[in-house]
């Protein structure tokens, strides 16, 4: 792995830790605003939390894609200088974003809360990434498997939705508030779909590599679900604005297409699970555990998402903490687990020493248990708020929120435990990353490419004499 990519992986993990740290502090700032307003107010902590979470997801996904693409495209042309430019420009911009937050300079848009001119640097960095990625795509030697389609789709749609996010700079878009809010949430919704494509593509890639079965990423059923996911990305964002009195057909289209996106991955993983032997499961136990955890979180979030996508139910859940539960469940439970599986796979966590594996396991169990408490308390808070606000019409606001705040104390404590659990994982990941040799990527690409070798390698790879444990399928 190149030094810059190694640094980029470490940077993405640091963003994860920051997201959880700012999230934990923000939860207490939410509960005790009088105290925090003097030092670090909630309106300053929230963008720090949201942005670091977003930058973790996008950086973790793109770092993985940059690492895997050599093997996936079976090409050596990786535009290293362009790639490096992307990495440093991206990381540098993120640092500047946090400096602006520290000085309370905001852009006030959901997800991207920094002053809009910084978006130009984000855009430029992304164009460098696209140039590097699509140059490799055009030089690929094989018909692209599904995960390559997913990465390519995610990278392209991130660009489209990021530009769409900033259309409000044009007068026509902000002249009407309904248009302004509709376009903002159309792009936000589709952008989530874009990074999901990148992350699920990575998940599929790891599955293919773990099972040694390339057909997982080439079957007709898998492609059918990919296109269903793409349809969702394009048209299923309306649940954000069901209550906005715009054209009704926008609402009906979104409702009809609904939240089928989660079903796609379940189906893919189910097919994969059947193909794994006990031995393979054992050898990749820790990475595999993260993927298994993501499956459970998909199921839980799927249930939630299906209810929330029905407008009649959304009437009660919209604007409540149930929406936060869904966002957190998807970001931490699904996306983070897949990305930790991906990074764990790259740094070969199952070959770390026993003590380090033990710490990662403790961190894993702690984070799963606390995330469940965290998630359930948000749902409880959301049900309470929805019932008291929509059904009982309790006013004033403070009175309506009184029992909700009590439940949120559980959420805040669970957040601290979640941060501690994740910190244990992240510190050990970063340590392992720091110990990786710069030549690792070449060997990884050579031995884990789509050239028929099974990636489950034994420890003799240290000598460069790599032997596949399982014969190619």
């Amino acid at each position: 792995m190149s030094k810059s990519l190694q640094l980029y992986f470490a940077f993405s993990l640091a963003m994860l830790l920051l997201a959880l740290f700012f999230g934990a502090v923000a939860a207490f700032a939410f509960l005790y605003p009088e105290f925090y307003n003097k030092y670090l107010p909630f309106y300053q902590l929230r963008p720090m939390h949201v942005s670091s979470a977003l930058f973790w997801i996008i950086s973790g996904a793109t770092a993985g894609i940059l690492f895997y693409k050599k093997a996936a495209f079976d090409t050596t042309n990786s535009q290293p200088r362009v790639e490096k430019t992307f990495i440093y420009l991206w990381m540098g911009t993120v640092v500047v974003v946090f400096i602006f937050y520290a000085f309370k300079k905001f852009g006030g848009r959901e997800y991207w809360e920094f002053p809009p001119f910084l978006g130009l640097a984000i855009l430029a960095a992304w164009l460098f990434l696209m140039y590097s990625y699509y140059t490799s795509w055009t030089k690929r030697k094989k018909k692209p498997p599904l995960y390559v389609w997913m990465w390519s789709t995610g990278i392209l749609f991130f660009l489209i939705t990021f530009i769409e996010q900033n259309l409000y700079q044009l007068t026509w878009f902000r002249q009407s508030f309904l248009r302004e809010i509709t376009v903002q949430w159309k792009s936000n919704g589709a952008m989530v779909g874009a990074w999901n494509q990148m992350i699920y593509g990575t998940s599929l890639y790891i599955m293919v590599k773990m099972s040694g079965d390339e057909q997982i990423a080439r079957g007709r059923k898998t492609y059918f679900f990919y296109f269903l996911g793409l349809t969702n990305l394009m048209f299923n964002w309306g649940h954000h604005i069901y209550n906005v009195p715009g054209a009704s057909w926008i609402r009906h289209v979104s409702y009809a297409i609904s939240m089928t996106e989660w079903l796609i991955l379940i189906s893919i993983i189910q097919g994969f699970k059947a193909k794994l032997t006990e031995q393979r499961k054992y050898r990749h136990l820790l990475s595999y555990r993260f993927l298994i955890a993501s499956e459970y979180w998909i199921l839980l979030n799927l249930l939630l998402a299906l209810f929330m996508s029905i407008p009649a139910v959304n009437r009660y859940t919209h604007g409540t903490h149930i929406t936060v539960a869904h966002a957190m469940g998807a970001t931490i439970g699904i996306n983070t687990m897949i990305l930790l599986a991906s990074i764990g796979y790259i740094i070969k966590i199952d070959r770390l020493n026993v003590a380090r594996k033990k710490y990662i396991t403790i961190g894993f169990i702690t984070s799963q248990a606390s995330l469940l408490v965290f998630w359930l308390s948000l749902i409880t808070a959301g049900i309470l708020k929805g019932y008291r606000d929509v059904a009982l019409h309790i006013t004033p606001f403070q009175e309506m929120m009184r029992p909700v705040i009590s439940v949120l104390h559980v959420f805040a404590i669970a957040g601290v435990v979640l941060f501690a659990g994740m910190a244990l994982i992240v510190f050990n990941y970063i340590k392992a990353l720091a110990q990786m040799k710069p030549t690792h990527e070449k060997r990884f690409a050579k031995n884990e490419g789509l050239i028929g070798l099974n990636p489950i390698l034994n420890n003799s790879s240290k000598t460069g004499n790599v032997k596949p444990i399982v014969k190619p399928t």
Partner: protein
Amino acid sequence: MIRWIWVSLFICFSGYTLLVYRECDSTQASADSKALAGMQTWQEKNCQSCHQLYGLGGYMGPDLTNVISEPGKGSDYMKSFIKYGTGSMPNFNLTDNEVANLIAFLDWVDKSGQSRVHPSSVHWTGTYNLSK
């Protein structure tokens, strides 16, 4: 085959996007310069991190979509909140002009529609039929 499906979907998405842009607000109600300046202040002070408009935004304070027309609230009520803050809301030390712009912005938002969906708007299929 895969490429064709992809391109077809993309064409549908492009057409759909243009339709959404055009039809999402049939009233074509445009903002005056005060409301747009208020929107700018709303964003610069990151008001959406604590408040919601149409249920979108933060959860710390109340939804402000219809605060201007809500009985017992209105412009003067909002002015004092914005100008001086409360126990949970910090004082942003805004100028009178900025406060007036924010009120104009909230008034513009209020006129765009109702955030709360009335039970009679819920169709038996589970969807809504909303009119401004």
